[in-house]
């Protein structure tokens, strides 16, 4: 019972924080609230037994992302301007999508149901066999590194690619490409197909 109450309280706080993020115009406050939102999400993951996920969310969401966002605000300015167009159409789209999704939840198994299909497929095998096959108490680590190693290799490659892309985008000195942008008239390309369209 107490767990249910904590669950409901944390979820309500998350909703309130998200609405505050949507409504505030000061981007500094928005970034700070998004750190708080991540911390609430991490607490929520502890309640839902996902300790590894909570650990990651607390370190990443409340830590690194907040630092990165503040670094960007220092470069771009921290006031958001009021948009000129009316938000009526986005509101209609969002309400319709949300209603459709809520309608869909009535077909979902109840929260915490041990016999839900998602809990019956491969999870029992991992929980029952992994200790004999891999020998680690932490099933999440066994599945992450061994059973689903391909998946994790892909994810690590995505992180590598993102780091390389950030290097390409903002790694050079500022204004390196200014010369290219200012002289578009110079149409001598060293291509071998002549270059005349």
């Amino acid at each position, binding site marked *: 019972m107490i767990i249910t109450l904590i669950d409901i309280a944390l979820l309500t706080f998350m909703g309130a924080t998200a609405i505050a993020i949507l409504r505030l115009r000061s981007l500094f406050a928005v970034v700070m609230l998004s750190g708080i939102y991540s911390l609430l999400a991490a607490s929520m993951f502890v309640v839902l037994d996902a300790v*590894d996920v909570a650990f*990651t969310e607390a370190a990443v969401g409340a830590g690194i992302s907040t630092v990165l966002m503040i670094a960007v605000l220092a*470069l771009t300015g921290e006031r958001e301007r009021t948009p000129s167009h009316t938000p009526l159409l986005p509101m209609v789209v969002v309400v319709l999508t949300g209603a459709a999704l809520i309608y869909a939840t009535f077909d979902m198994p109840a929260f915490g149901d041990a016999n839900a299909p998602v809990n019956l497929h491969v999870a029992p095998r991992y929980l029952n066999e992994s200790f004999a096959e891999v020998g*680690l108490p*932490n099933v999440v680590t066994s599945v992450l*590194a061994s059973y689903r190693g391909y998946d994790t*290799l892909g994810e690590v490659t995505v992180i590598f690619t*993102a780091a390389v892309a950030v290097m390409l985008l903002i790694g050079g000195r500022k204004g390196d490409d200014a010369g290219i942008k200012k002289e578009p008239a110079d149409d001598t390309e060293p291509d071998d197909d002549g270059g005349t369209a």
Partner: protein
Amino acid sequence: MRHHRVLRIISKLLIPFIMLFALYVQFHGDFGPGGGFQAGVIFGSAFILYGLIFGLEYARMVAPPAIVTRLVAAGVLIFAGTGYAGLFAGGNFLDYGVLKSDPVAGQHLGILLVEFGVGTTVAASMITIFFLFAGRDR
């Protein structure tokens, strides 16, 4: 923030423990919550804290960007290399059971190496990304 004495001393005290904790999370992740992803982020945040408090130029001396960028790739190579080691030892790609004569011990070794690769890439990526954003002049 170099002239804030309290911040400077406290962070100097904290940074070794943050790194120690990251290593604990890295190598104890098999038994408790934790693993390469979390450890990488925590290890990276130790360098980010150093950069925030003492200035970027000092952080670049501690973690030279040339080395850190190579580590981003090295982690992926450690991961894929472990996969190929399984392949050459006669198993499938990313099959760690064949790395040692005892399959469970082989799994232990493989997971340790793979998690180390993950931690290296994540930590190095976070440090690189922070250096790039913080080093960009307005």
